[in-house]
């Protein structure tokens, strides 16, 4: 009588452990699924604003750059035409500290737009990586959950205790996202 009671007690205790473990895994699966949405929302909120701010910076610097180029070429052409008065007038617009160097990359203001673009590209890559890793983690946790339900002693009780296998995240077979993206850098 006593051994039977002990065996039943042990069995009940084991069932409790199994149930708790499966509950934890199921909640992790739900959490991991919602974490994907967290990253998607972050991308949705962040990227358009970042792009707008970078474009604004680029536009401002483009106009500055254009004005500087105009002033410089005007000053140079005035110098070539030999009209002293015109030359002095144009020179006033742009300081020619470095003499007769004609390289156009000289004396331009230190434009930071390309650094902003680099930061934007890093942020884009990071956001996409986060989304990818969130999906990877979701699939990992679902695999762990499904395996925990399907291994031997537990599979006898899993459906009785109310657990069903979860679905892995995947792209539909005919999805356009499976295509290789075409990279065309022609401007």
């Amino acid at each position, binding site marked *: 009588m006593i051994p039977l009671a002990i065996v039943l007690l042990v069995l009940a205790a084991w069932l409790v452990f199994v149930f708790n473990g499966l509950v934890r895994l199921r909640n*992790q699966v739900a959490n*991991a699924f919602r974490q994907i949405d967290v*990253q998607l929302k972050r991308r949705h909120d962040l990227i358009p604003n970042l792009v707008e701010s970078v474009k604004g910076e680029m536009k401002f610097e483009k106009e500055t750059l254009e004005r500087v180029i105009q002033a410089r070429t005007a000053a140079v052409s005035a110098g070539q035409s030999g009209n002293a008065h015109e030359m002095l007038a144009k020179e006033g617009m742009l300081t020619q500290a470095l003499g007769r160097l004609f390289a156009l990359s000289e004396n331009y203001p230190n434009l930071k737009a390309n650094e902003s673009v680099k*930061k934007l590209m890093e*942020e884009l890559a990071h956001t996409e*990586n*986060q989304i990818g*890793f*969130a999906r990877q983690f979701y699939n990992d*946790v679902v695999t762990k959950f499904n395996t925990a339900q399907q291994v031997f002693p537990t599979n006898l009780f899993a459906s009785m205790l109310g657990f069903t296998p979860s679905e892995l995240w995947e792209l539909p077979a005919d999805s356009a996202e499976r295509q290789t993206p075409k990279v065309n850098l022609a401007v």
Partner: protein
Amino acid sequence: MIMAGFLAFFLAIGLGFDYFYLNFDPAGDLADTVVYEVSGAAPRQAGTNIPFGTILALLAGLGLTANGYFNGPRMVLRSTMARRADPENEKEKQFLNVVAEISTAAGLAKPPAGYIIPDADLNAFAAGNSPENAVIAVTEGLLATLNREELQGVVAHEMGHVRNYDIRLMTISAALMGAIALLSDFAGRSMRYGSRGRSYGGSSRGSGRKGGAPLLFLVWAVLVILAPLVSRILAMAISRQREFLADATGAELTRNPAALISALEKIRAAVMPTNAVNNGVAHMCIADPRGSLIEERMGFAADLLATHPPMEKRILALKVMAYQKANAGAARGM
């Protein structure tokens, strides 16, 4: 499994000490067991059931490492003069982004803090007892040399250490090593000063004591003499196994063993030792900071006492994961 062996070794030494010197006898039916205390005071009569020596040594070992356990990350970071990664700096911001990505892949709720070590050599380490208060640090040289994918691989290796609670494991191993060293030191003293009236002399009187006591004592004495060396070998064996595991976890997190292979090859090619990292932290780094001398020598002694497996073996294991054949040079080197 090695940890179990380590524990068994510690218990063998500790309980033997208690058995032979402190009157610990689990059989408990000896009325006239005699034991001589170290100071040569009058022998006691009653047997006890509590292994005082073992427990005291264990407590002492834990006490010695408790400081490391609780203040570990801060002490380590300060000793290497690490500074927090600066989000304004492009490379350090990339490092912080990579840490955030890999924590997402590992499912950690909070990404570990990122620190930079001002050293030109390539190395990285992780500290912290649990994922909540973990830190990951890389050297400036590493940031400058690796590309983004390889950085992901290295950070994933360190995240593997964090997720597998390796730092906590190594702290406990250090506690055991300290306890064993204490016990062996104590036992050595007892052997030298308590030479009169050995405990096996009491076996002729005690009815319940085993006849094999002198032999057992001899075996135990040999263990005690070898204890520091053996415990070090065991601890290093644990450290090497966990390095392999961290490599595998890193490859699993990024699903990209090739990136970690390429990072390890770059690390191996830079032979400068990492001066900022001292020996106390050595076992937590991704590559042996004392220079690749120990790693390149693949002899028996080097294999036993190294904190990290040889780089060749690690790269080979990763290539197997990536379904690549080892090249001829590595195969010959095995």
